[in-house]
């Protein structure tokens, strides 16, 4: 509208025109020009008042005030660049760290799984009470699954899926691809629709009808260049034609590794899914627990109701099977299973972030409080010339708000890089890592947090300034700008709290570090140093017969052993720390039921493996090349203790698996090893000779362990060359030092520890800055007093100690607070620790030394200045 655009100058011009016209009229009546003009002005009244009224009528006043406050605030901030720089930087670091970590936690923990109503999804695990000592829960069994699907009314539906690797041929180089086969309703249960084409039809998981496949978006893009005509075409998997019926949406992620429970390990990305195509009758009812079962609960049914019904069904199945064992089930919310162990660590980080942000706020409040006396005088003058309390408060809050906005903006910019850095640093095993990024929700939250911190750290000083008595403030001479004892105590408590929070974070960081050290020092049962590990996968087209596979393994072994720098070498079906595989029972003849027999991880090894990986022999002998066709076994120490307690296990015989399996003789006992993770106790291990006749081992995958007499990495290319020269068609999946596998297995812990240390150091740094500020300020405040003391004969060192003492009391009080908090809350982080108690005295002692040292340093630097104090100058200053 026009009037909005009318400018003040236009209005003034109109008034000027009026006065001119009026004075001209008066001149015509006979007045002198000066008289006429004066009379016209008189008749007009207050020009300024009219202009002000015009101005106010055309503006939104609050916007004007804000502009004015911001302008003034910027000037104030620019006047003290040191203060502004420190405040903005502190806040930026605080907000940057918070945003980055929060993005991480948001991506991994808070964002629901990208499935339809993910809170209705539960993982179904089976429980055999007789086995629960070794295996608390088991994956699902196909036959039982069919019974649940038919009889369990608490489930809207239930699906099962099993990881499956297949070889893709006919599209360039043969490639092994990872995916899964599932019941036809898997995507229906998850609530996922194909982006292109369709998912499975209900009948497609029947045997013979299952030659269809859906592809993941990323695989489709990489391998088929997003060719939309692929739908309906056929691709060759494991030599059989599969019709591509659909492409999954790009947002679809499938849980990986053991995120669907122990003993079901999905690869880090699933490229494809095919329907099962298995006869349930092929499966024994109480064996082959291989599948992840995902159930969607019917609406309005609680998990406990569903579990009760499921357990009734399970009991009936067990009764019908008459195997003399019970059968139960467990329902685990899918989300908590997927996020799993990471939850504790991430929540800890979030707590750390909150603590750091709190320290940041306290430091800023402290900075503002230090400036308080000066501001009180300024405010008093402003009050004296008519500013209201509201205006003063608004002005001061605008200032802190400005710091918050500047710091926040810089912080968000830092966070952008922080997130990328964290994602790069984070262990790949962290669930849903690929989904971590800064999203609008996090940004919004951070904008709120920065504004809130602005209000939070600005509110107290603003209130103090606005409520100061102007008379008193002005009465105090120009030289002394004393702060009230109330403000001083407030600032000192803030510093105490900072030191406390810093101490707490340091203790936590120390405990996590100690845990990691303990973990890396744990007796793994093997020695990873100087060991090179190579994983290979034999293409099924060219290696059809067991003898061919054995030929490859033998040839590689012979040639690798003759390489210079190789101490020993041997093959194994799966390396330590790479998880469980080939889990079966150990049944000793005459034992009542094989289900009550202990269960072990079976491994197939060639001669030389134990030497190469460094597993020590306890009793008997190693596996020799001549054992290839014999039924002999080397067992781990815990098998001996469990199966033949108090007896000599050598020469004992057992069935590897069911009673129909051949009797195997124990020829040696080796040390226990960590099979799954360094923090999980050893499992029962049985080593059988690898050979063409190896039962239950396809021989398509194997790992070579090579013990080097030099640095193992240097041996890498030579070993690779040997593999290539034997058969260049065999893909090498991994080639890395064994130490790297060990290191990777603790990567999550290392990451947590690293972040905890970063936080703790950051907190300690901020607290030290805070202490420095308080002591430096106290020295400045007490110049007169110190000068008098000096005049009366105190020497510089006495004064320094006086100041030092004051500062160290604060540090001590803060340290005690933090220590108390650590002792009280220690149990919260117990699950993250390994081999160290939350009250570990050594950690606490080292943290104490660190805190006191840093605190003393922060006090000493400003306190030392007192020794250079000139009493005359200090006293004259008034």
């Amino acid at each position, binding site marked *: 509208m026009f009037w909005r655009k009318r400018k003040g100058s236009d209005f003034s011009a109109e008034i000027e025109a009026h006065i001119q*016209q009026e004075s001209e009229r008066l001149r015509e009546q006979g007045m002198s020009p000066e008289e006429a003009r004066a009379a016209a002005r008189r008749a007009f009244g207050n020009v300024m008042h009219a202009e002000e009224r015009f101005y106010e009528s055309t503006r939104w006043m609050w916007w004007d005030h804000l502009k004015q406050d911001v302008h003034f605030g910027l000037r104030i901030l620019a006047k003290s660049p040191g203060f502004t720089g420190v405040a903005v930087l502190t806040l930026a670091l605080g907000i940057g760290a918070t945003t980055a970590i929060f993005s991480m936690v948001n991506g991994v923990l808070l964002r629901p799984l990208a499935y339809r109503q993910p809170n209705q999804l539960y993982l179904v695990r089976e429980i055999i009470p007789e086995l629960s000592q070794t295996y608390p829960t088991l994956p699902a069994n196909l036959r039982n699954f069919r019974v649940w699907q038919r009889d369990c009314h608490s489930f809207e539906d239930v699906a099962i899926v099993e990881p499956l690797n297949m070889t893709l041929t006919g599209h360039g180089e043969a490639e092994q691809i990872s995916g899964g086969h599932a019941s036809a309703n898997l995507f229906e249960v998850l609530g996922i629709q194909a982006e292109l084409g369709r998912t499975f039809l209900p009948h497609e998981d029947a045997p013979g009808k299952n030659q269809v496949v859906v592809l993941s978006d990323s695989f489709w893009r990489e391998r088929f260049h997003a060719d939309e005509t692929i739908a309906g075409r056929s691709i060759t998997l494991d030599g059989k034609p599969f019709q591509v019926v659909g492409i999954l949406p790009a947002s679809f992620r499938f849980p990986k590794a053991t995120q669907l429970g122990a003993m079901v390990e999905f690869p880090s990305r699933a490229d494809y899914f095919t329907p099962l195509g298995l006869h349930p009758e092929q499966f024994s009812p109480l064996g082959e627990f291989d599948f992840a079962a995902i159930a969607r609960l019917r609406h309005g049914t609680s998990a406990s109701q569903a579990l009760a019904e499921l357990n009734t069904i399970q009991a009936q199945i067990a009764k019908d099977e008459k195997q003399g064992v019970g059968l139960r089930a467990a329902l685990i919310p899918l989300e908590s299973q997927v996020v799993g162990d990471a939850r504790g660590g991430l929540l800890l980080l979030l707590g750390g972030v909150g603590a750091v942000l709190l320290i940041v706020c306290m430091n800023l409040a402290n900075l503002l409080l230090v400036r308080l006396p000066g501001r009180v005088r300024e405010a008093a003058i402003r009050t004296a010339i008519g500013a209201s309390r509201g205006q003063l408060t608004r002005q001061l809050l605008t200032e802190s708000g400005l710091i918050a906005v500047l710091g926040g903006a810089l912080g968000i910019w830092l966070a952008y890089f922080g997130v990328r850095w964290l994602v790069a640093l984070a262990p790949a095993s962290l669930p849903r890592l690929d989904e971590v990024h800064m999203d609008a929700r996090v940004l919004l939250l951070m904008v709120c947090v920065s504004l809130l911190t602005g209000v939070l750290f600005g509110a107290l000083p603003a209130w103090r300034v606005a409520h100061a008595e102007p008379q008193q403030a002005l009465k105090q001479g120009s030289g002394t700008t004393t702060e009230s004892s109330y403000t001083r105590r407030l600032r000192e408590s803030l510093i105490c709290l900072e030191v406390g929070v810093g101490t707490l974070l340091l203790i936590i960081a120390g405990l996590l570090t100690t845990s990691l050290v303990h973990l890396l020092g744990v007796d793994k049962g093997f020695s990873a140093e100087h060991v090179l590990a190579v994983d290979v996968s034999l293409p099924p087209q060219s290696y059809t017969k067991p003898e061919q596979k054995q030929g490859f393994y033998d040839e590689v072994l012979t040639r690798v052993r003759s390489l210079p720098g190789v101490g020993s070498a041997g093959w194994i079906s799966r390396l330590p720390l790479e998880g469980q595989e080939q889990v079966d029972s150990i049944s000793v003849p005459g034992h009542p039921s094989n289900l009550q027999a202990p269960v072990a991880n079976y491994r197939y090894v060639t001669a030389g493996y134990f030497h190469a990986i460094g597993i020590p022999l306890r009793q008997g002998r190693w596996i020799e090349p001549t054992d290839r066709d014999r039924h002999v076994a080397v067992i781990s120490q815990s098998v001996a203790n469990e199966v033949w307690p108090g007896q000599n296990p050598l020469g004992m015989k057992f069935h590897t698996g069911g009673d129909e399996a051949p009797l195997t003789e124990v020829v040696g006992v080796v040390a226990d090893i960590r099979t799954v993770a360094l923090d999980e106790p050893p499992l029962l291990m049985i080593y059988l000779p690898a050979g063409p006749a190896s039962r239950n081992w396809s021989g398509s995958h194997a790992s070579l362990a090579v013990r080097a007499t030099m640095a193992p990495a240097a041996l890498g290319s030579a070993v690779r060359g040997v593999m290539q020269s034997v058969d260049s068609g065999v893909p090498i999946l991994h080639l890395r030092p064994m130490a790297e596998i060990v290191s990777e297995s603790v990567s999550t812990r290392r990451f947590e520890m690293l972040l905890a240390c970063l936080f703790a150091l950051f907190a300690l740094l901020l607290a030290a800055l805070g202490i420095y500020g308080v002591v430096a300020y106290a020295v400045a405040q007490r110049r007169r007093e110190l000068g008098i003391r000096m005049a009366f004969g105190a020497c510089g060192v006495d004064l320094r100690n006086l100041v030092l003492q004051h500062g160290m009391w604060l540090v001590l009080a803060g340290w005690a607070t933090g220590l108390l908090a650590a002792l009280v809350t220690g149990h919260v982080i117990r699950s993250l620790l390994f081999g160290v108690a939350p009250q570990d005295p050594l950690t606490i002692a080292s943290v104490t030394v660190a805190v006191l040292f840093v605190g003393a340093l922060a006090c000493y630097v400003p306190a030392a200045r007192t020794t250079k104090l000139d009493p005359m100058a200090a006293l004259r200053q008034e």
Partner: protein
Amino acid sequence: MQGTLDLLILRTLIFGPQHGQGIARAIQQTSEEELLVEHGALYPALQRLEECGWISAKWGASSNNRKARFYSLTSAGRKQLVKETAKWKRLTAAIARILGLEAEGS
């Protein structure tokens, strides 16, 4: 009284476009110097009326060839004038009655 000045301005403009000083003079003359309008108060009132859309304004030349901002009545302003005049008449009549009664009573 609230709105009195507005009413007087609208009434003055019924004779054609006029600038601020002219309006002030006209009110003074028509009321036979009885109503002394503080000129400074006139302009915020004109601004207000303009915002209400009752009058419109544009710069032009005055009779003695000076630049001046001329105000004229809009049709909305005309309606408003009729309404306000009627209201004013009712109000003054009511006041007159009260004052008359008082005069009789005393």
